[in-house]
């Protein structure tokens, strides 16, 4: 029986000729990631292990992004703990304020993740790197500690769901609409324990940033990983950002899938997830009149250049609706600088939005945009659980940067067509 793309990468990293779904394996890791929330717990665990330091100082990435620049004393203590660990173990990929960005935008940009890699990260959105044709998945802090100590992790080889992407999307339809549509279709546990493998001719119309967004939210369908085949666009991205060699894998023609779906991009409409689950999706023509208090454009899901360009195109020459707060967060320093050079930051500020230094802050209700009781936010982030962005009685509506920017102009959930000629 043939293997899926994911299974081939796992087999190669377990030094096995083949693997099959359900098999327990131990795989070599190319990168182990942690942030300022999960790393302190991992560091506490690694100190209990009978090991001499870390397995490889260049294959660990520690990114201070969640509550950094530090929002309070306790967060500062956490970052200090990680900083000291990084220094003591000479971790080469330690990213602190000034160098840091939101981890899942930063690592591909820094060339630390390439096709064929096996990557674990103590952050659930580690699945983002599947956009490059890597196997990457979120784990907890103890797995991160074990990964840092041994360079290995155990996995149950996943079965897979195949998504055949066809057609060409209409203007304003982006990766976010694709993945929200899929989650609405299969549910928040629709891919539980499984790989989500994306294939098909429609992928040529998805930019790298679209693919990062789609792979990023595989976890919101319960998926173990999301993965794209490697094409010319992927190769060009990796050559631009990384000096590391990469390996291209593709699924065998006779690979088995638990389920197969066809997604016709030409039929997709702007899609919004209503509170309090990402699966509660409505297309823009179904949303009705939902007044909002805040808009967030950013995060590991949608804080990249494409996202900011789309938002700026819509906000250019317009004003944020009266009484609305709009927060724009470029995901990395490089993106921040690029957005500045392209004049996007001026567009946002003149429209009445604020532009923040890179941080995960508002996405998880940490800081930089926490909501009060009864408030509603349209956000380009990835979760709209109860209390996710603040008070338990606040609401988050997940949407694309185009919908977020249009909503910023009207003060209610709106599609881009409503504000663009």
């Amino acid at each position: 029986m043939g293997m899926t793309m994911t299974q081939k990468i796992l087999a190669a990293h377990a030094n096995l000729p083949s693997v099959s779904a359900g098999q327990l394996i131990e795989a070599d890791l190319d990168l182990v990631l942690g942030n300022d929330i999960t790393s302190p717990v991992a560091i506490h665990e690694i100190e209990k292990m009978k090991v001499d330091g870390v397995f490889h100082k260049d294959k660990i990435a520690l990114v201070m992004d969640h509550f950094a620049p530090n929002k309070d004393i306790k967060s500062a203590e956490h970052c200090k703990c990680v900083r000291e660990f990084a220094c003591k173990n000479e971790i080469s990929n330690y990213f602190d304020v000034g160098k840091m960005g939101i981890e899942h935008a930063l690592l591909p940009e820094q060339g630390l993740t390439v096709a064929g890699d096996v990557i674990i990260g103590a952050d659930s959105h580690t699945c983002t790197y599947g956009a490059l044709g890597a196997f990457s998945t979120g784990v907890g802090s103890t797995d991160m500690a074990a990964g840092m100590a041994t360079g290995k992790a155990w996995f149950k080889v996943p079965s897979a769901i195949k998504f055949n992407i066809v057609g060409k999307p209409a203007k304003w339809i982006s990766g976010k609409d694709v993945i929200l549509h899929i989650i609405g279709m299969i549910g928040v546990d629709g891919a539980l324990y499984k790989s989500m493998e994306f294939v098909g001719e429609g992928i040529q119309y998805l930019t790298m940033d679209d693919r990062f967004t789609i792979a990023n939210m595989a976890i919101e369908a319960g998926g173990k990983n999301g993965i794209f085949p490697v094409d010319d666009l992927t190769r060009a991205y990796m050559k631009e950002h990384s000096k590391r060699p990469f390996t291209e894998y593709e699924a065998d023609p006779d690979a088995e899938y638990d389920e197969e779906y066809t997604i016709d991009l030409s039929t997709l409409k702007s899609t919004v997830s209503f509170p309090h689950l990402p699966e509660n999706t409505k297309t823009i023509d179904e949303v009705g009149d939902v007044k909002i208090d805040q808009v967030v454009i950013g995060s590991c899901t949608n804080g990249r250049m494409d996202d900011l360009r789309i938002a700026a195109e819509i906000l250019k020459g317009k004003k944020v609706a009266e009484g609305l707060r709009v927060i724009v967060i470029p995901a990395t320093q490089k993106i921040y600088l690029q957005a500045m050079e392209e004049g996007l930051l001026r567009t946002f500020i003149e429209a009445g939005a604020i532009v923040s230094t890179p941080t995960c802050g508002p996405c998880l209700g940490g800081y930089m945009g926490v909501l009060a009781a009864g408030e509603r936010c349209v956000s380009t982030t990835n979760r709209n659980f109860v209390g996710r962005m603040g008070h338990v009685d606040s609401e988050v509506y997940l949407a694309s940067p185009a919908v977020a920017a249009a909503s910023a102009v009207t003060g209610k959930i709106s599609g881009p067509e409503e504000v663009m000629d």
Partner: protein
Amino acid sequence: MQAAHGSVFKYGDNVDTDVIIPARYLNSSDPKELATHCMEDIDKEFVNKVKEGDIIVANKNFGCGSSREHAPISIKAAGVSCVIAETFARIFYRNSINIGLPIVECPQAAKEIAAGDEVKVDFDSGVITDVTTGKTYQGQAFPPFMQKIIDCGGLVNYINQK
């Protein structure tokens, strides 16, 4: 191996890690402190009512969302002896095994056991007994490899003993 015995707190589908331990408390990694906010955004009374040994029963996809290990840590530190669910989200599942919080997948038990029932769980056999109703259920056994990690008391001890 040890068994669990306690009264049940019952929840529904898709209990996410944000309601188990909200991010506003993630500036701490102290289990005792995390335990004081456990389940706060889904059940404000949980921390006042929970007793050592009590059991959480929930439906599908328990622990979905963030990878924060603080979630199973807060549940364990609150005194919960076992979580029974129809299914668990995969990162929560790994984390629970890694930190030594016993979890059992059993759709029938998850459906039928009611809040406040007195329940016993035998981890060796996977048998769940609802003492209140007298019904028993067979929970799914762990693969031997995972059982080894659990028997060692978590991943750190497992690696230390290898």
